[in-house]
C-alpha cells in the first residue's frame, strides 16, 4: 500500500514509453523491503514522499520545491544544489532533498565496479535515485540531507577517485564526445583535452567568481555529438584544413550497391537504390561536389565540412590529415528562452598537449568577462552587448572574413585611429553640431 495515493502520476505510467514514476516506485519498494540490508542514512521512505510531493504539485499546478541555500562541502562553491520541500510536515522524508553533481569521466566511460560503488553509496547515504546523466553531463545524485554531504564527498574523493561537478557561477563540468576512442571522424583527442582542462581549471570549477555559469564542450568533428555549438560558452569543434580523402573504388561500390549508405543506419526501410546525385551531391550545402556518372569530384576550397557526404559514404570519404578544431563562443541553451548558437572565433587551432594556445584564449576571455560581464549574464550576452569586435580586441584575434555571417548586414565599418596607416583626426565637436545625439 503506497504511503500517498498518486492517481495523476499513475496515469504517466500508462503510455508505451518508460516512466520515471515507475522507476521511483520501484526504488520505493526496494528501500522498504531492503533485501541487501543497507543501513539507510536518510529516511528509507523518501521516494514515497517524493511521489507525494509531485502528485501535490500536479494537483496544485505549482511547485512545492525551494532550491538554493548554503549547503555544500567545505571550500567548494558548487556541486551541491540545496533543495527543500515547502510542505515538510506532510512530506518529512524529503524536507531536505539536496542534489549532488558528480564529475563524470571523459566521454562517460565506466566499468561496472565503479557504477555499483556509486549506486551503493547513494543507496546508503542518499535516496537511491540518480539521473544518468544531467544535461551538462554530470552524474546527478538526487536527494540527500545536509549531514550526509561531507560524508558523501569524503567517500567520493577517497574511495571512488571522483570529484563533484560544477554548479552556480562556476565553470561547469566540461563534457566531450567519444573522440578517437571509438570514432574515425575525430579530429582531436576530445577526452584528453576535456580531462586536461578539468584538472587545469579546478579553481574555476569549484570556487565561483564568474558572472554566471560557463560551459566548455568538445566535439571531435562537425557532427557535434555533444552539441557544443548550441550549448557551450566555449566550444571546440574538430575540423581539418586539407582535402577530404577519397577512395574512388569505394565510391563506385556505394553507387553499385555493394556498401550500404550511412553505414546502414537507414536500412530499416526500403528507400530504393542509392542515388549519389540526389543523396550526396545535391545535398552539399555549398554545391562543391559533382558526379559525372563515373567520378566524384570535390572542390575542397568551397567545402564547409558539414560532414554530410562523409556520413553518407564513410568507406569512400574520410576527414583530411591536417586536423585541429574551430573555436566557437557564446552559445547558450536556457530552459525558457534566449537560446543562442556559438559564434566562430577562430577557424582553426591545433589541439595538441599541453593545449597552450587554447588555454591562452580561454583565459583572455575569462579576464574580460569577469571584469565587464554583468551579473547573470552569459558570455554570449556580453558579446552581444559589448560587440564581437571587443571580443576580438581582448583575445588579440584579427578580424577575418570567416567572422562575417552575412555580407552587408551592417554596412558601417568603424575604424580606430591606430588601425589606419597614418591615423586620422576627428573633430567630435564639429561632428556633434551636425549630428545631434
Amino acid at each position: 500500500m503506497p504511503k500517498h495515493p498518486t492517481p495523476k502520476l499513475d496515469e504517466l505510467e500508462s503510455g508505451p514509453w518508460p516512466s520515471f514514476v515507475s522507476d521511483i516506485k520501484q526504488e520505493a519498494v526496494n528501500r522498504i523491503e531492503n533485501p541487501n540490508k543497507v543501513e539507510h542514512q536518510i529516511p528509507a521512505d523518501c521516494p514515497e514522499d517524493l511521489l507525494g510531493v509531485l502528485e501535490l504539485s500536479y494537483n496544485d499546478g505549482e511547485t512545492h520545491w525551494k532550491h538554493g541555500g548554503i549547503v555544500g562541502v567545505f571550500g567548494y562553491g558548487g556541486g551541491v544544489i540545496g533543495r527543500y520541500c515547502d510542505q515538510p510536515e506532510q512530506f518529512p522524508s524529503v524536507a531536505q532533498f539536496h542534489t549532488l553533481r558528480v564529475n563524470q569521466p571523459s566521454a562517460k566511460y565506466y566499468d561496472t565496479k565503479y557504477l555499483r560503488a556509486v549506486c551503493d553509496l547513494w543507496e546508503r547515504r542518499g535516496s537511491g535515485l540518480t539521473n544518468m546523466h544531467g544535461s551538462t553531463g554530470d552524474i546527478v545524485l538526487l536527494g540527500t540531507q545536509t549531514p550526509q554531504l561531507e560524508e558523501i564527498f569524503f567517500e567520493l574523493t577517497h574511495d571512488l577517485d571522483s570529484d563533484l561537478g560544477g554548479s552556480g557561477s562556476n565553470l561547469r563540468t566540461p563534457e566531450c564526445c567519444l573522440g578517437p576512442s571509438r570514432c574515425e571522424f575525430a579530429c582531436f583527442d576530445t577526452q584528453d583535452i576535456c580531462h586536461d582542462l578539468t584538472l587545469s581549471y579546478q579553481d574555476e570549477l569549484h570556487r565561483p567568481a564568474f558572472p554566471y555559469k560557463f560551459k566548455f564542450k568538445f566535439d571531435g568533428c562537425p557532427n557535434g555529438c555533444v552539441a557544443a555549438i548550441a550549448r557551450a560558452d566555449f566550444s571546440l569543434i574538430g575540423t581539418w584544413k586539407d582535402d577530404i580523402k577519397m577512395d574512388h573504388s569505394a565510391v563506385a561500390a556505394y553507387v553499385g550497391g555493394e556498401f550500404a549508405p550511412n553505414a546502414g543506419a537507414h536500412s530499416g526501410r526500403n528507400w530504393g537504390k542509392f542515388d549519389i546525385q540526389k543523396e550526396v551531391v545535391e545535398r552539399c550545402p555549398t554545391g562543391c561536389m559533382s558526379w559525372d556518372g563515373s567520378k566524384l569530384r570535390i572542390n575542397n576550397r568551397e567545402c564547409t565540412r558539414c560532414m554530410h557526404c562523409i556520413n553518407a559514404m564513410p568507406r569512400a570519404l574520410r576527414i583530411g590529415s591536417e586536423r585541429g578544431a574551430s573555436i566557437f563562443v557564446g552559445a547558450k541553451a536556457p530552459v525558457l528562452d534566449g537560446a543562442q548558437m556559438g559564434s566562430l572565433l577562430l577557424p582553426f587551432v591545433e589541439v595538441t598537449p599541453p593545449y597552450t594556445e587554447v588555454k591562452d584564449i580561454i583565459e583572455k576571455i575569462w579576464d574580460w568577462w569577469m571584469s565587464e560581464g554583468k551579473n547573470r549574464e552569459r558570455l554570449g550576452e556580453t558579446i552581444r552587448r559589448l560587440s564581437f569586435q571587443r571580443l576580438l580586441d581582448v583575445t588579440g584575434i584579427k578580424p577575418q572574413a570567416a567572422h562575417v555571417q552575412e555580407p552587408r548586414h551592417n554596412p558601417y565599418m568603424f575604424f580606430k585611429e591606430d588601425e589606419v596607416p597614418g591615423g586620422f583626426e576627428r573633430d567630435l565637436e564639429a561632428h556633434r553640431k551636425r549630428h545631434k545625439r
Partner: protein
Amino acid sequence: MTEDQQKIVDFIAGKNKTKFYFNDFLAVFPDRGPREVKKVLTAMVQEEIMEFWSSGSTTLYGLKGSGKQGQAEGEA
C-alpha cells in the same frame, strides 16, 4: 583578519543586504583584477569568515551565518 579581509567585511557592513555577487567586491579593490579579488574571498571562505550561497545556477557570497537562509533552513 588581514587588511583586505577587513575591507570586505566593512563593505558588507555598509550595505543593507547579506548576499553579494562576486562582481560587487570588485568595487572594493578598484586597482586589482578579478583573480586577485577572488584570492581574498577564497581565503575568507577557507577561514570560515564568509560562505557561499548558491541558487543552483548563480552563486553569491555572504558573511557566515548571516541572512535569512542560514536561520530559515536550519543550517546556521
